[in-house]
Structures are given as structure tokens and as C-alpha cells.
């Protein structure tokens, strides 16, 4: 539970005084109460879904369920990868063709 609290505090901030996170379970009637002093936090899941939470308790609940304040899906990995490989291939091609020209120039 100690590490869970650390993770929650990393994502949601320090727990307000007097509030302890207890799992509300699967109660369909449970309603999260808004905390006017809590600054809204956006949480993301692995599939890129987004949710805004309005209380520390609500935030803790979602973080425990796998949501995170770090958005990963905005990172365009394919674009980054393309430009990295493209630069590498340019260097390799230059080396190859200059070498090729030298080797077979006299043949």
C-alpha cells in the first residue's frame, strides 16, 4: 500500500489532510464528491483515453486502476523513428556510394 500511495501522490499530489484513500469497490451508486480546492488533473490510460478528475480521492481511485497523469500517446514514435533511421541511412548511403565509386572506378 505504501508504494501505491507514493504512486498516487506522484500523479495527484500530496493527500489533503484527513483524507485516506480506501477502495470504494464496485459500488455502482458511489459518487465522487468534487473538491473545490483541488486543481483538476487530467489522467490518461494506455489507450490514450482521457479523464478529468476533480478531487484527490477520485484521482487516487483512477491511478490505482492504472490511469496516469503522464500522457504517452502524444509521442509520435513512428515520426521520431523515421527521422532517426533516415539520418542514419543517409550517412550509410554516402559511405557506401563513395566507397563503391572508389573501388570500381578503375574497373
Amino acid at each position, binding site marked *: *500500500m505504501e*508504494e*501505491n500511495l507514493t*504512486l498516487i501522490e*506522484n*500523479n495527484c499530489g500530496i493527500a489533503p489532510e484527513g483524507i485516506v484513500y480506501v477502495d470504494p469497490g464496485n459500488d455502482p451508486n458511489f459518487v465522487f464528491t468534487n473538491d473545490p480546492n483541488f486543481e483538476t488533473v487530467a489522467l490518461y490510460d*494506455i489507450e490514450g483515453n482521457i479523464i478529468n478528475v476533480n478531487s484527490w480521492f477520485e484521482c487516487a481511485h483512477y*491511478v*490505482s*486502476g*492504472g*490511469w*496516469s497523469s*503522464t500522457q*504517452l*500517446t502524444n*509521442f*509520435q*514514435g*513512428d*515520426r*521520431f*523513428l*523515421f527521422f532517426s*533511421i*533516415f539520418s*542514419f*541511412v543517409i550517412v*550509410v*548511403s554516402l559511405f*557506401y556510394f563513395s*566507397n*563503391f565509386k572508389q573501388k*570500381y572506378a578503375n574497373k
Partner: protein
Amino acid sequence: MFVLLFILFFPFVNHDSEDIFSSLPIDDTSVGYYQSSTCNISIYEVYIENQNNQNIQYRPHNYAGAECYGKVTGVDKVNDIFKVSIGVNPSLSFFIQIILWCGLLFLTKKTENNTIKFSNLSLVLLPSIFTFQHFSEEKFYLSQNKYFSPELSMSNYYLFIIFLTVYMFCIFTNMILEKRIYQLINYIPFAFLLVGTFNGFNLNFYVLLFTLLGVNNLSKRGFNSWFNKSYMLFSIFWLFSHKDSNTYFDTDKLRGLINSSNTLSSQIYWILIAGLVINGFYFLYLESEINIKLLLRNFLITGTFVSFFGFLGSISNLFNFFNFYVFGQNKLGMRTFSSIAGNTWRGFSASAESLGEFYGFIILFYVLCFFLNMTRIKYWDFPMLAVIAYGLFRSNNFAVIFSISLFVILIILQKRLNLKVSMRVLIASILTSTVLLATFIGSKYEYENLSSGLLYEASLHSNFYKDKSNYSKTILVTKFFEDGDLGTLFNIENPENGSSLLRNLVKIYTPQIDIPLFPNIVTIASTASILINRTEMWGIFIAKYSPSLVETFFGNGPYQLSNYLYFQEVRLDLPEEKLTSLFLPHSSLADLFIFTGLIGIFTFSYMTIRLIKKKSSNEAFKLLLIFLLINFLKSDSLLYVNSVMLLFLAFSLVAKDRVFNE
């Protein structure tokens, strides 16, 4: 070597020790933590924190982005095991694996005096062909890579990455092989250690390599060979008889060398690839020189390393993961060293059988080289041979153990008794001994059971008596077979329900005109299937395969199993849990029949027999080829890249005019 290791392991070790995400011991309480801190903790951090935890399994997670490479993308508890998913995005791992494996090619022996100028045609052709594969096998790639998109646009970086990476491969290979092609054939054994299947791709490194050699063969020698002309003819039949369907084969353990789709474009792709690979084999055969000592050494090293790393992978979950990634395995290796369903070697080999053939080949090759005075026994050979023999034992391949025992005894007898017998006599005596043994084993069965056992098994798995249960179907089929009334069973009771192959085999089994002393081919196949315990598998193959007339003669096209797997409706007489398994034909001859039809089988058989009959400077190596061909008859090794390469090597050993022993 250091550079290669750095490229390989850096993404898995790289982490920010100052960040807020630290690794924790994995247990019930920390699962949630790992699930919400995805892509931040490296496998290295997790391993260091959980070294003594035996309940952890690392598994690759392809559908993660490049930013999650080498990092934990989730932890799930299944029973008592914590399954830690590690992000290995296929686009990035394709790039890394190409650099790594090309780097290993760089470590092969080079010959300064012999250089070959490789054609630059491959720099354009190969990237185009392999990028085209991603369109032709769209369903496969959609499930493997989050970046995949078949859309043709400038913002589709995925396709550019594939194109550029294959282009880079061609440049590397052209540079590396120009001085190494002469020795390359001697490194074929390493294909059993470095399996070479790209993570998240239906592509194998050796397929890529041989297509490159194939392009060079075509640019050097032209298209005008008899093979290329006949292949063109086959291709026309394959394309015209093609049935476009929406079926999808998830490739399973065949990943890297199988058509996952059944569309015209995937058919064109695989026709191109198979043609180029065969041209590549021919190129390597002509340009390489076999060096027996080097080849033997490489066989011994590979055999030992496969067992060694297989063992490590079974005792360490971390090694199990890295074996998969570094060696390009089709599936994660076995986590136990005991034989489970005869599949001890899964990972390094798609099937234990094919690895058994490899181990058997090494032992036979060593014995032959020793008796031909091509090698001297060295003291370190013994531990390596012992490891290889243990690997063979673990493969549970009785046919290989039996055949090498027979071959080795005959070779020793010939040498020790100094008998001047020709290779033909030796081969004849091997065949006679096998037939005698088969007769002895077969004598305990009734003739009727032996001759029709295969047809009976196929009928049990066919969709006969659609409105009756499997149990009633079995009783009815058994009754007709016991009465010998196959005509009523197939023509009156179930006229349309059996596969065309089954119906034609029944016609051959019950001929209108009986030719005395001429053995019935169905009887021979049925007897053989019972003796080598293949009745059920071959029965399923006959029940499932329903080729048209053109397919009977020309097949379905290279590495196209979709029609065999999905076209014919069957009702397998098997336990519920086995019904969804992958049922391969369990005979390379049957595989060849599916791909190239009867004409392909006859052409291959004719060429092989002609080669074996032809006088060779390496007569003794014909035993290796025969050993392999016999074992291929009862295994699907033709579907595995490394086994096909081993067969190519066996052909080359016989066909090459000169082999060097220095």
C-alpha cells in the same frame, strides 16, 4: 562486438534513475503500481529488484510504441505467475535486429583474394518488395504494430521505416558479403541458433538474405534458366487458379515463412519471394566453397550452443525473453526442460522434430568426416558431441535416432571390415533393413487394417453424416470399413462430404482393374503411416485437403496453406481442447504437394534421384542427403527456414565438385 552488444542491450538497460518511477518487488500489491507507471521502468530495473522471484515471466509486447521500448508496459497476474510485458515495438526492433544480425555476418571469415561486386538493383527492388508485403498481409501487420497503416500517404512513416530499413540491410549486406560470400555456405549451421525471425514481422532474416542473393543471381546470370522458365509456368497456374478469400492464418510457429493471407497480392508477394530465394540458393551454391573443417566446427558449436541457451532459457525467465529477442525465435522458448508434448526445443526450433533432424545430421556428418579422414578427433569434440546427443535424446525423435544408428552401424561395418562396397550397395542395404524391420513390426497387424488404416482415419475426421454425433459417425464408418464396403460409404451415404483427396485415394485403393504384383500406393502409404505413428496426422491431412484439378497438378502456390487449412469443412474426431490446434500435414512431401502439386513432387523427385544416381566426388555425403530426405517425409521441416537451408546444404555437399578440407 561491443558495439553490437551496446545496440542490443541499451534500450533494455536505459532508464532515468532520478525519475519518480522506481522499480518495486513484484507482488499482489505492486501490480497496480506497474500498471499505472507504464513505459517508465526498464526490464533491467525490474530484474534487479526481483532477481529471486521465480514467479515472474517476461513476455514481449509488440503493440507498444517506440517510447516504451525495453520498458514495462504492464503486469498481470495469471494464476500464481506475474506476467511482465516488455515493450518491443516491431518497427524499432526490425531496425535493431537488422543491425545486430548483419553485424554477425561481419564476423564470418573473409577471403581477401575473392571479391564479388554485388548488384545495386537490390537497393531498389528489395525495399519495394518487402514494403509491398505490408499491404499484401495487412491483417497480420494490423495486429502486430500500432504504427501500421496501409494508407498511401506522405505521413505514413511506418511504410518509410520499412523501406529504409530494408534498403539499409541491402547496403550492409552488399558491403559485408563482397569478401565473405565464398565462405558463407559454411555458416549455414548457425541458422539453427540464430533463427532470424523478425519480432512482429512475418519475415525471416535468411529470407531477406537469400532474396538479395537471388536478385544478384538474376542480374549476373539472367532469367533464362530452365528453373525460372518452369517457375513462370507454375506462377501462371497459381495466379489463375487463385481463390481470393478473406481467410487469415495467424502464422503461429511458422511465422517468417508462410503466407498469412489468401489474397492475390499476398500470392504475388510469395511467388516473388520463393522464386528469388531459390535463385539465391543457386547463387550461393555457385559462389561459395565448402570447407569441411570449418563446416564441421560450426555444426558442433551451433549444436552445443542451441542446447546451452535452450537450457538457460528454461531455467531463467530473463534468458527466455532475450533468447526470443536476440536469436529471433518464432515463439518464446519452453520454460521447462522436461519433454512436454514432445516440444522441448520450442523456441530455437518450431518443432522438436526438425531440431532432432539437425542434431542427427551433426552426428552423422561427424562420423562420416571421421571415417573419411576429413577430421581428426579433438578432445573438445567429445563434450560437444555429448551435449548434441543429449539434445537429440530430448527431441524425442525416434525416427532420427533409429536412422542415424542404422547409418552409423553400416558405415562402421563397412570401414572396420574393410568391405569394398559401393554407395549403391550401402543405400540398398539401408533400405532393405528398413523394409525388413517394417515387415517385422507390421506382422502383428491384420492386412486389412494396415492397408486401409489411413483411409479409415481420414473418414473419421471428415464431415460425414452431418446430422449425427461424432460417436454415431465413428460406429457407421467403422462398420463400412469392416465390411469392406467403401463404395456405399463414399458414393451413396456421403457422396459430397469427403475431401477430393480422400475420394480420389479411395478410387485408387479400390481400382476397377487389379494389376497383380503391382503394389497399391494407398496401401504403401497407409502401412508406412501406421509403422511410424503418423496415421492420425496424415488422416487429418487427407480429410482437410480438397484440391481442384489444377491444384492437384500445380498446387496452391509457395507457402500458401490457407486453402488446406480453411477450405474443406471437417469434423475432427478429437478431444474438445485439441480442436483449435494447428494441424499441419506432418510430411514435407504433403507440404510440397499443397504448394506445387503432383508436377512439383515429380520434378523434385526426378532431380533428387538423378543427383543421387550421378557419380559424385563426395559419394559418402549422399547418406546425409538420404537421411534428411527420409526424415523430411514424416516431418513438416519444409515449412521451417533453417531446415530448408540444411536440406540445401545437404544437396550442395553432394553436388559440389570440390570440397575443401583445410
